[in-house]
């Protein structure tokens, strides 16, 4: 059993609502989101539990969970929530907060994937898959996963050996810089 949750008033739920633009406080624990969640079996917290912990202000538990990184953004929860809460949007807000507060769980490989993916987009304006996968493998230490699939992918022309950059790469770099600044605005 973990320790009792420290009550932090509504600070966490307010912050999540501000970022996601959805009423996380409206959740009344019907569990419909958890019932239809495709990754429920692998999650350490079900989506309805994440929602309740957000309301309770249990920041460390939520931001350090594997659940927020296992969410596949399939939007089944958002579509089915009887209170119209954008639960997938709440997961996005929590992932962003976890990274900002350096609270992401050690098993958050999706966070490493996201960084590798966006690094590729920033450089080329588009995803260069080979470069993105190499960056992900080096950062995550998962060097051998899927390596056996490479010859088949190459043979079928599914992996480009050189990036096909967009003509708008300078524009994209500016957009990345200004989007980062935008997130710092009060």
């Amino acid at each position, binding site marked *: 059993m973990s320790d009792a949750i420290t009550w932090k008033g509504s600070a966490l739920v307010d912050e999540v609502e501000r*970022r996601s633009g959805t009423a996380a406080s409206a959740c009344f624990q019907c569990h419909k989101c958890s019932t239809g969640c*495709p*990754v429920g*079996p*692998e999650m350490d917290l079900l989506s309805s539990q994440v929602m309740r912990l957000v309301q309770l202000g249990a920041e460390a538990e939520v931001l350090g969970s594997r659940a927020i*990184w*296992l969410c*596949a*953004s*399939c*939007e*089944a929860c*958002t*579509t089915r929530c009887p209170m119209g809460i*954008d639960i997938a949007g709440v*997961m*996005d807000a929590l*992932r*962003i907060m976890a*990274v900002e507060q350096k609270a992401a769980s050690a098993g958050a*490989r*999706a966070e*490493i*994937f*996201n*960084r590798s*993916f*966006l690094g590729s*987009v920033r450089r080329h*304006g*588009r*995803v260069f*898959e080979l470069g993105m*996968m190499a960056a*992900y493998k080096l950062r*995550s230490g998962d060097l051998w*996963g*899927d390596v056996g*699939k490479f010859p*088949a*992918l190459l043979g*079928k*022309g*599914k*992996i*480009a050996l050189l990036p*096909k950059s*967009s*003509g*708008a790469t300078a*524009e*994209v770099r*500016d*957009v*990345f810089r*200004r*989007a*980062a600044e*935008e*997130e710092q605005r009060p």
Partner: protein
Amino acid sequence: MKYAFFPGCSLESTAWDFAQSTRAVCAALDIELEDIPDWVCCGSTPAHASNASLALALPAMNLQKARRLGLPLMTACASCYARLRTANYKIRDDDAARQRVQRITGAAYDGRVEVRHVLDVLVNDLGLAAIRARVRRPLEGLRVASYYGCLLARPPEIVALDDPEHPTCLDDLVMATGAESVTWPYKTECCGASLAMTESGVVSRLGHRLLSMARQAGAECIVVACPLCQMNLDLRQPDAAKAHGPLPQTPVLYFTQLLGLALGLSAKELGLRALSVSADALLADRGAAAATKGTP
């Protein structure tokens, strides 16, 4: 009919056959496509999971480029489709979001460029009757599971294509080719999407569920409208079988490839060689032998 075409990153690499078959089918049906010059990545899941401003600005850049062409935007990737429509939805009625996009991209954008999926264009703009009239090689006897995945169906107020729990437009298109579209319960269940890289065990489990249910419902192949669905069900089929029990080999085609075959296009024109689980034997058995030989 003319659209500004947004291919997206996957259609230039892992899903080149989706790009090729989309272009071939549109050409055959007199749907004109003009590529958006210098399009950029839509940001996909990594952007909306990392930076809310970036998740608006990257799609907005493309929508601004489409605006300059003066055409509605058409895309084939279900994920790009959802990201572009989500950006429009968030920008359209929110002054703060509009101002933010203007500060980041340096240009005004009102969130009103129309975003269409190729399935929507085929079924709703061209129409099933027109498609039926162009079928030269009906795929009679072929039993297909129409798989929509997540992002063509959800959330309904954003993608606005069909019913979120029981969509039928892809089934209708499959039936227009002369094939049978089986009734099955997992047509909008998730395949695990980009978790393939980071949580391959999840994708094996979900893939096995989808493939075995499609088979149980009597399907011989699956048609998809998303590069991630295709890859997770096709390339990763052996992983699913290894982890969760044997599966019969099940070809997973893009719906544009299936439609192209019915329209009389060749396997080569439709990029069928890109499939990991070959569809040749299946299609040869079903009277589409000419297609697999490469001659229409």
